[in-house]
C-alpha cells in the first residue's frame, strides 16, 4: 500500500491524449474533471492499482460538487476498476506571515464578482483579501485552496519486482 498525494490542481502538462465522455459540458469544472482523470490514468499507466481516490474540494475555489460527482463517479471506475471514489470538502484557512494569525473565509467579505474571479484562479484572493488582523497581503493559504487529489494505490501483481 502506498499513498500518492499531489499538491494543487493536477493536470498532465505535457498533454496526454484526452478522454472519453464525448459530451461538451458548459462549465469550467469540466477542465478540472479532465485533469483529475488524466492524473488517475497516468498512475494506472505507471503500473499501480488504484484502490481509493479522494477528491478534496477546497472552499476557496468553490467548485460545483454535483458536477464533479456526476462525471467522476462514471469515469473513474472505467479507468481504475475497483477504485473507491470519495469527496471531501476542505474549509479554507489562511495564515499571515507577518503577524502569525490564522483565519477562515467567514472573517472576510467577498462580493459576487470577487467570488467568481477566485473560482477561476484561487490566487486572485491576494488581489482582494488582506490579513484581517494586520492588513498584510503576505499570507499563506494553508488549506482549502482548490481541487486536490489523494490516491491510495498498490503495485499490480504482474508488475512487482524492481521499481525504477
Amino acid at each position: 500500500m502506498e499513498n500518492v498525494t499531489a499538491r494543487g490542481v493536477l493536470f498532465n502538462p505535457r498533454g496526454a491524449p484526452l478522454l472519453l465522455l464525448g459530451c461538451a459540458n458548459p462549465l469550467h469544472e469540466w477542465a478540472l474533471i479532465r485533469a483529475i482523470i488524466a492524473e488517475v490514468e497516468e498512475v494506472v499507466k505507471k503500473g499501480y492499482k488504484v484502490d481509493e481516490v479522494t477528491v478534496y474540494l477546497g472552499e476557496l475555489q468553490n467548485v460545483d460538487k454535483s458536477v464533479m460527482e456526476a462525471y467522476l463517479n462514471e469515469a473513474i471506475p472505467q479507468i481504475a476498476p475497483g477504485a473507491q471514489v470519495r469527496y471531501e470538502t476542505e474549509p479554507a484557512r489562511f495564515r499571515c506571515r507577518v503577524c502569525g494569525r490564522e483565519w477562515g473565509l467567514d472573517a472576510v467579505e467577498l462580493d459576487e464578482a470577487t467570488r467568481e474571479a477566485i473560482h477561476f484562479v484561487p490566487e486572485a484572493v491576494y488581489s482582494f483579501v488582506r490579513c484581517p488582523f494586520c492588513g498584510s497581503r503576505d499570507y499563506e493559504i494553508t488549506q482549502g485552496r482548490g481541487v486536490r487529489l489523494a490516491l491510495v494505490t498498490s503495485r499490480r501483481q504482474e508488475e512487482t519486482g524492481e521499481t525504477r
Partner: protein
Amino acid sequence: MLSKVKAVVPVMSAKGGVGKTLVAVLTALHAARMGRRVGLLDLDVTSPSAHIALGVDPQKLQPEERDGVVPPDVAGVKFMTVAFYTWDKPTPLRGPAVDDAIREVLAVTNWGELDLLVVDTPPGLRDEALDVLEYLPRPRVLAVATPSRLARAGVERLLAILEEQGLERYIVENMAIGAVGLEELAEKYHARYLGRIRYD
C-alpha cells in the same frame, strides 16, 4: 490543454524592460494577420501587462466557460491573462502561489487548435521561468535582449540554461541604438539570431 497546440514560443529574458511584452504581442498579432491560428498567454501573473499593450480592459472582456475557459478573441488572437481575474489590482504572490496560479491557468484554458501559442513571461530566473521549462511542451524560447551592458549578463544566464537543457532558442535584439550587435552571443550559445528591432 495544450495537446492541440503545434508550437509554443515563450518570450523570455532574465532582465526586465527589454521589450518582452511588446515583442510577444507584436509576434502574436503579426502571426494572426498572416492567417495563423494563434494564442497569447500572459504568464506574468503578479504584474500582467499584455492586456495593456493589446489595449483591452480585462474587466470588460471575459473568457467564456465552455469545456474549460475559452480565451476571448482580440484582433484574431486568442488571449488569456490572469488579469481577467485580478484586474489591475496589486497581486503580490510568493513562489508556490505563482506556481499554483500558473498550473491552474494551464489546466483550465481551452485553446482548441492552434498553430502557435506565444507566452509572455516576467523577467528573472524564478518560478515562472522554471514553470515554462517544466510544464510547456517543447518550448522554443525567444530570448529578448538589448545591447545594454547591464542587460547582457542576464541574456547570457538565460541562454546558458536553455543550452544546457537542450532547448531550441532564438534571440531578438530590441531597442538597438548603435551598431554593436549581439550576434556573437548568439554564436556563443548556439542560438539563432533573428535580427533587431530599432528603438521606435
